């Protein structure tokens, strides 16, 4: 038995929002490190260790964990494809919040590309 979309949708939205917060924390920590990485594996590990010293990264992990718990519950109730499809609102959250909080330049091309992806995901969820 598959539960109705109206039950799954708010849970996925909440999960998406938590993940967006996690991504914002992580990206802002990475931005403040100002590192240019090479392909050296030790340098990458050192970078990750430095990154883990930021409390906001751990804040992000908490949100990520909440997101994961919600996501696991959703997966136990819905089809993997359907769950992934509804997760597309994640892209709206990410685009808006990176413009607002990270001051990334979200131009016409990026917006239209993101919209195309959302249309694609909606099509996937309709089927």
């Amino acid at each position, binding site marked *: 038995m598959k539960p109705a979309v109206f039950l799954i949708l708010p849970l996925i939205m909440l999960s998406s929002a938590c993940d967006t917060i996690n991504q914002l924390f992580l990206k802002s920590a990475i931005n403040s490190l100002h590192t240019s990485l090479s392909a050296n594996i030790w340098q990458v590990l050192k970078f990750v260790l430095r990154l883990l010293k930021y409390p906001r990264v751990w804040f992000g992990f908490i949100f990520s964990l909440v997101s994961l718990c919600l996501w696991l519950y959703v997966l136990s109730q819905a089809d993997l*494809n359907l769950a992934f499809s509804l997760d597309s609102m994640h892209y709206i959250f990410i685009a808006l919040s990176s413009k607002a909080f990270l001051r990334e330049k979200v131009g016409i091309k990026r917006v239209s590309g993101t919209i195309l992806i959302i249309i*694609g995901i909606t099509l*996937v969820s309709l089927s």
Partner: protein
Amino acid sequence: MFKKKLTLKILLFLAATDILETLTQLCFKKSVFSAIGLDSPGLAGLGAVLKTAFSSPLLWCGFAAVAVTFIIWSTVLSKIDLSVAVPVASFSYILVPLASIIFLREKISILRWAGICFIIAGVIFVSLSSRERVKTE
């Protein structure tokens, strides 16, 4: 400042996180398969589902994949914008249905394939936008 352009190398890294994410999702879904039998849609079912899922070794494989994904993902984010990385990572929408066909035997319709084409077009647009930005700066 560092480069923000989406290069082929970064795209390959993103593909690697996608594959790992697909693996993670499969581990998670398989680990909660046993929990489906509980089938209580309310929040009361949440605890029972999680308890069953966490006792499965597959879930812990999923967590290991998450750790590796974190390392690669933060490396990628040090190179490109978040609003580029996240849409481009939607390549997993192509990998997950394919994995679903093979491992979980779920069916994919023509409409779903059309959606996948839209996603590919969108990913191309977004990656072009990251190139445009470098030019203007």
